Structures are given as C-alpha cells and as structure tokens.
C-alpha cells in the first residue's frame, strides 16, 4: 500500500483506514482516482456515476473492458478494483449526484468528497452540498494534455462558484437561420433541424428563415411589424416543421428542396443581407443527382475523416432521413428521438445537413470526424493526463486528512514547462470571495430583465436553474404577503409557469427570495426592469464582468443534446426533460505563473 511507514505516518495510515470518502464520477479521472485511493490505503470509498460504459472510454478508463460496454461505470469500477484489493469496502451508485436522495445528511457521512466530473451543473451542485455540509471538496478537471486540481473548504478557500466562469458561447437566431458564416453555425442549424423533424420541437430552435432579422431594417419598429405580419401571414412559421414533414411523409426530395433550395431562395429575397456578404447558392436535388459519381475510398486514413462531395452528402441526407423516419415510426405515436452523437443515423443526418448548408454558404465542407467533434462537444482525452491529476488529488487528500489543509494548493498541469521550468505549478489557494453569490453569508444578485416579457417558467429554468445552478428552486416574492411564485413541489405552481412576472406585481426594484432546500442555499434576487436588452437576450446578471462571461450573458445549453451513451438516464433538472452535456472544462483561474486553463463549452444554440 504504501505510504512511507516511518512513525509520523502510522497515525495517518490509521485515519485512512477509518475514514469514508466519496468519489463523484467513475470516468477518466474517477478510475484513476479509485485505484490510487485503494493503493494508498483508503478503505471506505463510495463512488457514484450515472453513466454507462462506451467503447470510446476504453482508451483511458482502464477499469473497464470491451465486454463491459453498456454497463454501469460505478458498478464495474467497483468490481474491477476488488480484483486487486478485495478488502476495500466500496459502495457503487448508478445514479445522478443531483438526485435529492443525496442530501446534506448524506454528504455529512464523508470526511472528504472528490469530484471527477465532466460538467458544470454537477460541479456547482456538489460545491453547494459540500458547503452546506461543511465537508472539504477536492475539485479537478482535465482536457487533452492539461489538468488542474484544487481544494475547496468552506470559510477557508474560494468555493467553486466564487469566480465567474465563462458561459457557453451561443449564437443569435438570425446567424443560425439567415446568415451563417462559420461551420459551427451550420452544425447548430443541423442539430436544430434534427429536433424540429424528429425530436422535441423547441421555439428557440427555429430553422426557417428569420423575417424578424434586425439586419433587414434600420428601424426596430419595422422589425416588429414584419414579425407580426409574418405571424399573421400564415407562412412557413405557422405550420411546424415536423407537421409539414409529416404531411409529406418525410419525402426526402421534398425536404431537401425545401431546406436547401426554397428556403435559400427566400433568403435571397432579403437582399439587404447580401449587400456585403456572399449570397448563398441554392441547391437542386435533380441537378445534384446528375453530378453524382461513385465516391472513391481513398487512402489509409479513417473513413470518417474523408470529405465527400455535394452529391455524397445529398445521398447521406436522404438515407439518414429515411432511417430516422422509420425509427420514429417504430416508436409509435407522439414519439420523439433524442440526438446522440454515437447514434449513427443521427450523426449522419447532422453531418449531411450541416455540410449541405456549408456548401450553400460557400464554406469548405468538413468530414464526419470533424463535425462529430463540434456537434458532440467532444474533448480529446488520454490516460496519462488523468493519471497525473488523480495522483495529485490523493496527495491533496492526504494533506487534508493529516490536518495540513494550509499546505493544500491549486496545482496546474501544463503541456510544456513554464519559464521557471515548472510542468506542475502549485499555487496558493485564494480566500472566499466576499461577493460570491453562493458562499457569501447572505448572497444577493441583481438581474436585469423585462417583467412584462419574462415568463415564470423562464425565470425558473433559464435563470435559477441554468444560470444560478439550482436544482429545485422555491421562490417567494418579498411583497409583504410572501406570495409564492414557484414551488419545487411538482404541480403546485404549474399554473404560474405561463404567466409573466408582471402578472404577479413584480416590477423594477422587486426582490425575490429563492431557496433550494436540497442545496441548503438561499439567494436574494433583485429585479431591475429593462426594456432594451440586446436582441435574443432574455436577461442579464448585473456584475457579470464582460470579459469573463462573453456576451450575450444568457446562456442556453442545448437542452436536447443528450451526449454520451443512450442508456444513461439523467433525472430531469428542468421541466423540459433531458439535460446533460458531456463537455467539461477545467476551471479558469489565472495564476501568477501564467497558466491559464480555460475551456468554455463549445458553442450552441441561439440565445433569445
């Protein structure tokens, strides 16, 4: 096992055998961490992970083998560890840490919690639970060759949310729908299209030309007029894309011509857009078929890394639509598909649709391999980075358990040594931020929004859950009557969801008391009424430094992207259902020695 066995360490060895620790995540860092913990002498370990094993995990999650694909990560990790350490007492949970079952009492069972996560929502949540339970938390992250470890202790150090993190980049609706200029815009459009045709339709994920594009006119009033006019006009917008597709029987030729010819021709009529931009070139199905020539499979590269021609992607579009249509039919009435990068027809569809759109807008088409990276938020990962970081986690854990928490550090792993020759850079931990909206004693925030246009539902989902990381918020208006606006109990305040904040007397200067009882967290929200937020911006948090949270501030993670294995079941954290992103990040502390590791989650979605 081996810790140095000189006299000072006998006491430490004893406390290692006795204490209980929690590992959140059994993936890249988690596997390495479990191994290090048992070899170091930790005896009582609980590990939780909601995910199942995928073949792409096997290059680094070494506790898993091919025969385990599809099984629970936490469960298999435990079994694997018992092979070389049968005396370890490991409890495995195939579950989400955000499940209310894992309340503050649960967390209080442990002397130490170690995160091995890959998404911010869970990190925020565990951060709050550990603050509430006053248990030390070791936080970590890796991406490619880079990694970071840090220690969070209530009252002593910054918590995970003390420093604002860059929010996910989003694109305005008009860029996605009218004037894409980068491949990513086309990829986002293709994912929206998938949802509109086969998945859960979302008003924020429109794919048809946007007649309310502010660029079409200098006069904002004009834009309003157009938007209203087109609503009344009975044009494409009124019939949902899915209904239209269904009415044609998902006819691939009709679909192709509508999306890649008719809609493009419509865009061309909006000539203001094309005065200084290269105009898009519509495609025609029949013309393309004439061009088609058999695709040579060339070279020794990966099949997925080839870039086909327009004809090839048209074929791919057609094939994938047919496959998806029949998958949908098989699921029965009212069924919806959920996009998954590891589901071949879903990935084919996005590859084809995105590429066709890129071609239309004069961008070089990309391989399936590259599109999968972007559409699927794939972050490259290797075993060695995780091995180093997991080693550092245990070393920090030992300091904490010896009572040497002042020896703890944030440690960065760089790709190359810095000018002071350091590859691993330890930095002193920072004290808590006085203004932190999570760990300050009476946290408060101020939010700018339009009280007449913000729905209660939007407040709950986009502001309290997404932006402020709550899982089950309860909201009371400080109006002297204690009016309950939102209750975390299901169904209690459902009737309020479709009403506007102003309907409840909320106006400029109103204060809302927001509680998340699971996280033992109370936040006071000051409301500032504002009528001229930027287009596509629903709210703004005052005090979000612009360089840290890139505009626009209201981030909307792509709700219908369930990356990762299809079998994994994430309990709903929003009323819209599946809400899981696989992208992870290394937190963005800037150190004196110049190692900035910052990874915003890849861009998605419009921001309304």
């Amino acid at each position: 096992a081996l810790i140095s066995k000189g006299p000072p360490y006998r006491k430490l060895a004893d406390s290692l055998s006795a204490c209980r620790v929690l590992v959140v995540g059994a993936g890249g860092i988690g596997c390495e961490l479990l191994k290090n913990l048992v070899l170091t002498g930790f005896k009582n370990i609980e590990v939780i992970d909601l995910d199942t094993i995928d073949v792409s995990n096997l290059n680094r999650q070494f506790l898993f083998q091919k025969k385990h694909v599809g099984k629970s990560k936490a469960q298999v990790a435990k079994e694997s560890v018992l092979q070389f350490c049968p005396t370890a007492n490991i409890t495995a949970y195939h579950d989400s840490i955000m499940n209310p079952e894992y309340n503050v009492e649960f967390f209080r069972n442990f002397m130490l919690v170690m995160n091995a996560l890959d998404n911010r929502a869970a990190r925020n949540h565990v951060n709050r639970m550990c603050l509430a339970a006053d248990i030390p938390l070791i936080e970590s992250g890796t991406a490619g060759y880079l990694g970071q470890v840090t220690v969070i202790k209530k009252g002593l150090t910054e918590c995970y949310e003390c420093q604002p993190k860059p929010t996910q980049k989003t694109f305005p609706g008009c860029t996605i729908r009218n004037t894409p200029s980068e491949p990513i815009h086309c990829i986002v459009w293709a994912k929206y299209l998938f949802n509109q045709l086969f998945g859960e339709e979302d008003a924020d994920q429109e794919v048809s030309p946007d007649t309310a594009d502010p660029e079409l006119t200098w006069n904002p009033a004009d834009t309003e007029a157009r938007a209203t006019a087109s609503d009344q006009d009975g044009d494409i917008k009124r019939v949902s894309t899915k209904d239209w597709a269904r009415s044609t029987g998902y006819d691939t030729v009709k679909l192709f011509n509508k999306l890649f010819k008719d809609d493009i021709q419509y865009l061309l009529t909006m000539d203001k857009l094309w005065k200084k931009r290269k105009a898009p070139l519509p495609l025609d199905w029949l013309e393309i078929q004439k061009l088609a020539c058999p695709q040579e499979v060339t070279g020794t590269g990966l099949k997925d890394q080839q870039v086909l021609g327009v004809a090839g992607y048209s074929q791919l579009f057609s094939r994938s639509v047919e496959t998806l249509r029949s998958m949908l039919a098989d699921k029965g009435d009212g069924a919806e598909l959920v996009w998954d990068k590891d589901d071949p027809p879903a990935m084919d569809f996005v590859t084809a649709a995105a590429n066709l759109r890129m071609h239309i807008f004069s961008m070089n088409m990309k391989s399936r391999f590259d599109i999968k990276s972007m559409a699927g938020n794939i972050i490259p990962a290797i075993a060695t980075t995780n091995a180093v970081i997991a080693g550092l986690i245990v070393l920090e854990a030992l300091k904490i358990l010896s009572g040497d928490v002042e020896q703890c550090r944030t440690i960065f792993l760089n790709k190359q040594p810095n000018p002071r020759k350091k590859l691993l850079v330890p930095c002193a931990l920072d004290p808590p931020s006085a203004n932190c909206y999570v760990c300050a004693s009476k946290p408060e925030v101020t939010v700018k929004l339009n009280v007449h246009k913000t729905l209660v539902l939007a407040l709950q989902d986009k502001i309290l859950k997404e932006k402020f990381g709550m899982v089950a918020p309860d909201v009371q208006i400080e109006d002297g009557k204690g009016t309950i606006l939102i209750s975390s109990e299901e169904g209690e305040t459902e009737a309020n969801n479709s009403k506007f904040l102003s309907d409840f007397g909320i106006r400029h200067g109103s204060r809302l008391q927001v509680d998340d009882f699971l996280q033992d967290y109370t936040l006071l929200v000051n409301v500032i009424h504002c009528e001229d937020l930027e287009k596509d911006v629903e709210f703004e948090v005052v005090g979000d430094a612009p360089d840290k949270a890139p505009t626009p501030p209201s981030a909307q993670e792509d709700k219908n992207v369930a990356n990762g294995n299809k079998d994994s079941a994430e309990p709903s954290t929003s009323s819209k259902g599946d809400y899981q992103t696989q992208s992870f990040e290394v937190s963005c502390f800037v150190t004196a020695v110049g190692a900035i590791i910052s990874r915003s989650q890849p861009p998605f979605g419009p921001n309304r």
Partner: protein
Amino acid sequence: MIEKEDSIISEEEAAQYDRQIRLWGLDAQKRLRGSRVLLVGLRGLGAEVAKNLILAGVKGLTMLDHELVTEESSRAQFLIPVNNQGQNRAQASLERAQYLNPMVEVKADTDRVETKPDEFFLQFEAVCLTGCSRDLMVRVDQLCFEHNIKVFCGDVFGYHGYMFSDLGQEHNYVEEKPKVVKPKTEESNDGPEAKKTKIDSNETTMIKKTACFCSLKLALEVDWTNEKAKSSLKHTPHFSTTQSIVFSPFVPLFFPTVLLKFRTDKGRDPHPESFEADAMLLRQIRDDVLEAMGLSSDLLPHDFVSYCFSEMAPVCAVVGGVLGQEVVKALSQRDAPHKNFFFFDGMKGSGVVDYFGPK
C-alpha cells in the same frame, strides 16, 4: 527509426482510440502502433507506465522483472491480483495488463535484466528502466544510444520521483501550430454591418523540429564544484527551510542521487522493516552527497528520510503519467520532449523539467 506503417486503421482501433486520435492525430497513432517497448521493473511505477503505454496502443510491451510477488508488493500495484504470492511479478501482472488492451502484444519476461545480452535490447524502439541500478541504467543507455533506441529511466522514492530521457543525438519531431487568421471586422453598433465570410480558423500547420539529448553517463557526471554551475541560479527550484533558502541548480538531483547510491550499496531500496538502519545509511549518504555538492549538511530537515521510503501510489501515478506521455511523444515523434529530467516533489506538488549534461 520508427517507420510509419502506411496501413489502414481498423474500425475497432478507430472506435477505441477515438479520443486520443482527436488529440494527437492519426499519424501519431500509427507510429505508436508500430512500436515495441521494453519495460523493466513492475513495481508501482512500472505498473503505471505499463498501463499508460498499453492503453496508448503500442505494438508490443515486454514487461521484464525477475522479482517475486511478496505479501507487501501485492498491495502495491493494481495489475497483480491477490493470492499471487511467490509468483514472478511480471508473470503475475500479465493477465490484467493484457486485458487493458487486447490489441497490444503484452509479454512477460522473468529474467534478471543484468543477465540480458546486448542483442536483447535491440529489438525494441524504446526501453524504459525502473528500479534499476545506476550502473545498469548507464550501460543500457549507452548501448541504446548507439542504436537509436529511445531510453527512459524513472524511479519513485516515497514522496519523490524522477524520470530521465535520452532520445538520441538527434530526435526529430513535429509540432502543430495554428495557422494565423486575419482578425474579423467588428460589428458597429448603429445598424447592420456586413460580416465577411470567415475562413475556417481551425487550420493548423506542422512544424518540424529537432532536439538533441545526451547520455545518462554524461548527465550524471555533473561537476558539483563548478563555479559557473553554482552561479547559474536564477530560475531554478530550491530547498527552503525555516532558516534559509538555498539556491542550487543541483538540488532536484539530490534525492535521486542519494537513493540510487543507497540502491547500489544495499542492492535494494530503503524498506520500512529496516527503517532505523536504512535511515542511518541514508543520512550518511546524504552527508556525503551534500558535501560533494558543496552544501552544508544541516540544510535539509533531519526527517527527510521519512519521505523516501516505499513507493507512494499517487506519486507513482504522477511520475508514471509524465513518463508514459514522454514515451508516447518520442515514439509518435510529435510534440516537444522534456529535456532531459523531470523531478516531482509530492510534498509540494511541484514538478520541474531540467537539463543536466554537457551544454
């Protein structure tokens, strides 16, 4: 030199190696797939390196160790299942090592490395030595240097660890750099401004580079008393005690030097069971080494010895991770290698790269 096999990557490999191909590219993966590696020593550090290289997808890994599994060593590494006492360590590690990646040819060799003839080493593209005596490392490194075989050495002593690499006189590699893209025009606030169609800003270019390494023999033949060496102090890691701060470029070499001397003298590493006697010998060697380095004996804490017994698992993980990645870089000829030592201090959490050897 490692020839890139111009062959196809199978679907199985593409699926399994997907996340690393996205990081270091297909070319690098192919080169790895054409490389055979020898790993000597299957204690804590060796097991980590074995895992990392097998997962990376080398062609073959030969694990060489003559030692037997003891009750203690069965708790020291994760490849050996329990109840394998008395078995050869490499042999006992074989099954779980192979399970890590069936696409790699994993072998176990139970011979003593000192008895291996020169020709034995020549069948590999890279050789990695852990738990070896200084003399053996020097001999093998010399041999490999002459045959363009990459050599790596590493050890973990308690909270401390190091690795050394010798990639030969001229190691060629590539670095991927982003292509410079014109900045896009900012949108002005009053009315729509045209955006130019952007060129794809994700393009990169490969730049060829060369790095030169020296042999282990030369690296360790440091002249401690050289005035120039003493005064080249600016950004080098140092010991700090409550009394004074010592700057010396050689300080990071201190632990490996003392522990390798111990290993040569006793034929083994310090062992908790003979703590008192070993501690005494360690302090004696410490005194000798510090004197040779021209530093005062009382500059190190008296209990430094406590920190160098056994191999600490998390330290093995860190050193094994860095060492493993250096082997991958060297075999794939991609990205700048660390020249030529890496030192890790598990107490401080600091890891430094430094060069020792002729300029």
